[in-house]
């Protein structure tokens, strides 16, 4: 029986595009760890026996092996370290790697540090850099950027599922509004206003059916999560730790057009799935995580989630991939505001990528941290109000997502 994996703490720097006062990545990492130590004073740097670094792109970092700069700055020479990179799912994949390390029994206290410094280039150059994670031989400069590929997938998905532009616009408004009392969130730090689905509908066209407020932002930010064995968790945070009861990681094609008839999918889910509209890797990763956590009815058994809302459309697609709704009821699921704070399964109470921000290597860790805060009753301490607290939550899902759905991980976290 593999060992139980726990999360005992974590924190992020403020997320923003431009100056935050936390500009140096090694300084930001140190401050995230110090905030974690404030929450769990018994956690000592000397406890760390493995460091996993979560960082997407050298194009934003202008520094090869920038994890080496952070690592020795933290005073951790001699402690093993390596970097995990997996596109937008870098954070989730780093958490997966840390969990495996603890599960194996080889490590007890694994620090995961994630970051991205996307404001080192202009937004439009940044979009083009991200497009270097498409198959550039066939897709670079064809349209040009990721939101366009997502829009093409979403356009057909919405038609196939009778989901309207207004239906998904509610998600763009929801996540920004959830970030209104979250002081580290990019939306809080900048526009900081409550918006409606109409505001999303009236924002400028990015790629039909996606508008500006359907999209996440580019960010600078650093995050830290402490992953550990249950023995260690009981020692330093006996009342506030959270267990990772299920996890799954799966993969799909780099080019979205290649998943129409992929034999590996036909074999698993039958002909026609996922096509260009569904996130097959998300479903597959959910199947693994649910099985491991013993979840039979996710909509009933999961209380909330922190998921990868790079676009409001993809958040809706993820609901379906996670079995929260199917083609017959997804539109109604959205119209019922089921994932709003007052709904049956709130999604992205922390603000998500659209509200909190998306510094790629830190993003999946940010989602993990927000989920951890909910399950350890720390929301009143970390947010400015209890509006985004999911009261008495027992079980949350964390989702991290890359490419056009090319790599996806899901984690089931439970209160200890």
């Amino acid at each position: 029986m593999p060992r139980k994996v726990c999360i005992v703490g974590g924190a992020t720097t403020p997320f923003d595009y431009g100056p935050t006062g936390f500009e140096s990545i090694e300084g930001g990492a140190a401050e995230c760890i110090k905030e974690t130590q404030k929450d769990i004073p018994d956690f000592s740097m000397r406890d760390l026996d493995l460091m996993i670094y979560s960082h997407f792109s050298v194009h934003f970092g202008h520094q090869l092996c920038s994890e080496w700069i952070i690592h020795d700055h933290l005073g951790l020479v001699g402690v093993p370290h390596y970097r995990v990179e997996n596109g937008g799912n870098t954070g989730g994949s780093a958490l997966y790697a840390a969990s495996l390390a603890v599960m194996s029994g080889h490590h007890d206290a694994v620090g995961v540090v994630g970051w991205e410094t996307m404001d080192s280039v202009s937004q439009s150059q940044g979009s083009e850099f991200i497009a270097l994670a498409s198959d550039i031989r066939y897709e670079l400069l064809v349209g040009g950027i990721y939101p366009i590929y997502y829009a093409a997938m979403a356009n057909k998905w919405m038609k196939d599922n009778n989901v309207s532009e207004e239906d998904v616009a509610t998600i763009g408004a929801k996540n920004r509004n959830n970030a209104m009392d979250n002081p580290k969130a990019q939306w809080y730090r900048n526009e900081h206003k409550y918006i409606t689905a109409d505001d999303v509908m009236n924002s400028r066209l990015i790629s039909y059916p996606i508008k500006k407020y359907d999209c996440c932002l580019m960010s600078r930010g650093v995050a830290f999560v402490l992953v550990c064995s249950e023995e260690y968790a009981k020692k330093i945070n006996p009342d506030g730790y959270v267990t990772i009861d299920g996890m799954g990681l799966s993969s799909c094609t780099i080019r979205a057009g290649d998943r129409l008839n992929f034999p590996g999918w036909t074999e698993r889910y039958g002909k026609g799935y996922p096509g260009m509209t569904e996130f097959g890797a998300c479903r597959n990763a959910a199947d693994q995580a649910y099985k491991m956590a013993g979840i039979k009815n996710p909509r009933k058994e999961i209380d909330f989630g922190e998921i990868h809302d790079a676009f409001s459309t993809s958040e809706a697609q993820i609901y379906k991939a996670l079995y929260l709704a199917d083609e017959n009821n997804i539109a109604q699921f959205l119209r019922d505001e089921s994932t709003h704070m007052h709904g049956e399964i709130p999604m992205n109470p922390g603000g998500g990528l659209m509200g909190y921000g998306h510094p790629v290597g830190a993003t999946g860790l940010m989602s993990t941290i927000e989920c951890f805060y909910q399950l350890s009753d720390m929301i009143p301490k970390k947010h400015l109000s209890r509006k985004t607290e999911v009261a008495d939550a027992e079980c949350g899902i964390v989702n991290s997502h890359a490419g056009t759905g090319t790599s996806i991980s899901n984690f089931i976290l439970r209160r200890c």
Partner: protein
Amino acid sequence: MGGETITRKKKKFAKEPNFTEKKTYRPEGVKETGLAFIGHEISEDGNTMNQFLHYDQLYTIRHGWNSKFFKGLLEGKIWGTKCPKCGDTWVPVRTHCWNLDCNLEKTEWVEMPLTAKVHTWTIAGWSGRSSLKRLPIVLVYAVIGDSKVAIANELHGIDSWDAEFGMPLKIVFKPKGERSGIITDFHFEPTNDWKPSPTNEEKERIKQLVEPVYEWVKTLK
């Protein structure tokens, strides 16, 4: 000690290409000057400093076994590949079959028809910095011939709001002299007999979204 060239024939595994036909189309002013710090800024309170690092770099994309596809673009042809075992066909190409039962069977080249069908579509109103002036762009994923996959490219010759699922397309290449052996050497256009469907609520909505994009592009220098 050393100094003697070993002339024995080395094991090569494959014939190495010798490049004899070369073309460059780099714009004026692109120089590979290497890494350079080219400026800095300091905050008003004197506490924070930013430094500007510049480099421009030429990369060589070696297409290797995929070359026939890109060379085909120069010639106005679309090459696909086909698995001799299971018969699956692809554009974009695969040099080895994706079917695990075919055990990475090497595929064969097949010339594809210059016709396709729209699988899905979108209208871009924003893009990367090198594409901004071409907005709005209709992007489609379309299936060429009996390909098992869809390929992304632009759809021209249409009012953006008239794009439709399943619409029949032809592949149109740029004039020969303007081709670079890259994917944008061709685009899609509706087939000659295709007619747009009458206007509807969605088309009106798209018009409303796209009109400001046309205006905004006019303001770009």
